[in-house]
């Protein structure tokens, strides 16, 4: 698979157009202003969390302002925002995360005599993949069902944070907020002028021009 590109497309360029209302502007402004420092996790836990986020959603190396994924995970727990359900076998979200982060460090120490954050990408991925498959063992997991914790907590929280961010919307060519203007062209292969143009091979220049007019 190769990366698609939407050259020059930035959802945020539509901030002051009829595609955004005041409620949206204030919601996204608040999101972009998320505190970068942890308020729920200790700074040590936070460093491990960042090393996890980095693998669940690796961001392009040349991205100037990567989405601060760990900050969003921290902010959600800190603000006491709940999911509306808890699997009976999983502790509440903050506790589950703390157990999980400590256990990842434990695994890293056992295998590589290092902190999880200091492992190579491949080593981190191996541990995470084994967690996904439920193959890790030990008291340090405190009986947490690993597959559930991995998919329904770790991946869940990190992808919620990433795909709730304008940077990710621009990356996938999603139109983003759309009220009150909405959309007009509903048929296949039709794009409203305020939607992202894809830079398909050979059409990059044209897409760049079209995306300049996305307002």
């Amino acid at each position: 698979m190769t990366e698609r590109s939407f050259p020059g497309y930035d959802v945020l360029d539509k901030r002051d157009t009829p595609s955004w209302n005041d409620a949206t502007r204030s919601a996204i402004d608040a999101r972009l202003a998320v505190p970068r420092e942890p308020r729920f996790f200790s700074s040590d836990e936070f460093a491990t969390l960042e090393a996890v986020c980095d693998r669940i959603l690796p961001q392009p190396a040349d991205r100037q302002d990567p989405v601060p994924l760990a900050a969003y995970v921290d902010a959600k727990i800190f603000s006491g925002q709940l999911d509306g359900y808890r699997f009976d076998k999983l502790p509440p979200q903050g506790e589950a995360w703390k157990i999980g982060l400590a256990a990842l460090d434990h695994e890293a120490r056992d295998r590589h005599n290092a902190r999880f954050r200091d492992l190579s990408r491949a080593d981190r991925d191996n541990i995470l993949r084994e967690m996904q498959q439920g193959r890790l063992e030990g008291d340090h997991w405190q009986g947490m069902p690993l597959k559930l914790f991995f998919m329904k907590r770790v991946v869940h929280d990190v992808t919620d944070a990433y795909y709730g961010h304008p940077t990710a919307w621009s990356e996938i060519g999603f139109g983003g907020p759309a009220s009150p203007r909405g959309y007009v062209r509903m048929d296949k292969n039709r794009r409203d002028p305020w939607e992202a143009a894809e830079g398909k091979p050979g059409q990059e220049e044209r897409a760049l021009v079209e995306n300049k007019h996305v307002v």
Partner: protein
Amino acid sequence: MSSDPFERPRAANGRAPDVFKTGGWIPMRQHRDVDEVDFAIVGTGAGGGTLAARLAEKGFSVVAFDAGPYFRPLEDFASDETAQEKLYWNDPRVVQGADPIVMGGKNSGKTVGGSMVHFAMVSLRFRPEWFKARSTLGYGADWPIGWEEMWRYYDQVERDLSISGPITYPWGPPRPRYPYRPHPMNAAAEVLARGCEAMGMKWTPTPLATVSAPRGEAHPCVYRGFCRFGCSTNAKQSTLNTYIPRAIRAGAEIRDLAMVGRIETDAGDRATGVHYHRDGQWRFQKARNVIVAGYAVESPRLLLNSATDRHRDGLANSSGLVGKNLMTQPNQAVYGKSKDEIRWNKGPPSLAITEHWNYDDEKDFHGGYCWMGQGPLPIEWAKTMTTSRGIWGDELRLAMQDYNYQVGVKMVGECLPSENNRVELADQKDRYGLPVAKITFGWSENDKALIRHALDQMEMSMEAAGVTDLFRQEEDANHLGGTVKMGDDRRSSVLDADCRSWDVPNLFVCDGSVFPTVGGVNPSLTIQAIALRTADRIEQLAAHGDL
């Protein structure tokens, strides 16, 4: 920007928000706690909001409580998946069992107007035979109501909500023309149609509760596609902008941010009012009759939390069935990639539908299902990909870049009632000190057979439509019912046909929980039709001095 709807109640001081005008208000009649009102209604969603309007219009005094805030869609609703989580019932609930049900946004709202504020607007009638599923189709249970009567109430809701739909609906007995013209199909709906045609199945533009032309102060749909996160234009005809304003105009009082914790009963078997928490304190509203309409988890929870020495197993529970027979609807899907740009986020998510397998009985399992077009927004789409395909990391980030090419169909199916699936009280308490709900669920063998059949059929249709890279979303459920069921017999049901408790004659339950079976279509049109019928029945009972 308007005030914070969570900070303090907006429906107060003789007025309530005018949802159609920025900063506007409408006058609202109010009652004192000591006034014995005719009806205290718990919940203002599809069931409670509809009843509040009809009972007030019939001249009864009504106070309707909702634990959630009173939103102003034009001002409070962002076009954003995350910010709009404020619409959901996010308080703790414990889920367990072989197939635990994911709650929160997937399943229940907590706002004046209830879950319809974020529902997907698909407005379907039950197949007539489902009202007598046991006697005509040989499974599930019979409803104590017949389809002909329900058909008349469906007519009424469809008019009240100005449903937009096709001129002729392909399945079931004739129905009147839908009040508003169907919405144009988006590219995702075209793919569904193509797949159905290739398989020799009928399809139709979906009857939707969003207007295709102006209606009163509501603007027509602008196809922004955030329907599941609240409609900021008022095109969507939810309880919040239809029956609730009607209720207030007719003299009902709505109390927002008012959590009912307990129904009070006297020394005998009559309810006397409700204890509720508002403005930081517990209060008691006297009432001649109480109607519970908190949906299929909160309604049984409230009944169980209202136990007394006389009603040890919970109120209205001599049958032992309060909380039992929880049903959810299979909501599995098949997704894939189109070579065309689809951009499925444009327009309401389900602009086309097929009910083929609700009306074709050539199957080796009980029950039916429909499937409809889809348009998940990025967060939901990422969740679908991670849970269904197990992908993350670079693989996920790259796969998500195909967003504009994805297309798919999703079923709404019939799950069979089973007493093992249930809502009980957990040890855990919520912020009001009330035990929270513990929800146990697992699919039956019949449910699994139905799901397999649907996944196969949906996959074939997508393949026939030329969609590639198909994958199945095997794990998903929505819509709840069954936990306070109605019936003909007090031993095998909690309520009679009028949604009235067999045990406590001035206590009613009227919402999704009353369904003895859930059928293979989305439920809210049926919930509202039952609410309209219940209001008429209450009027008749009152006229005969039977209330």
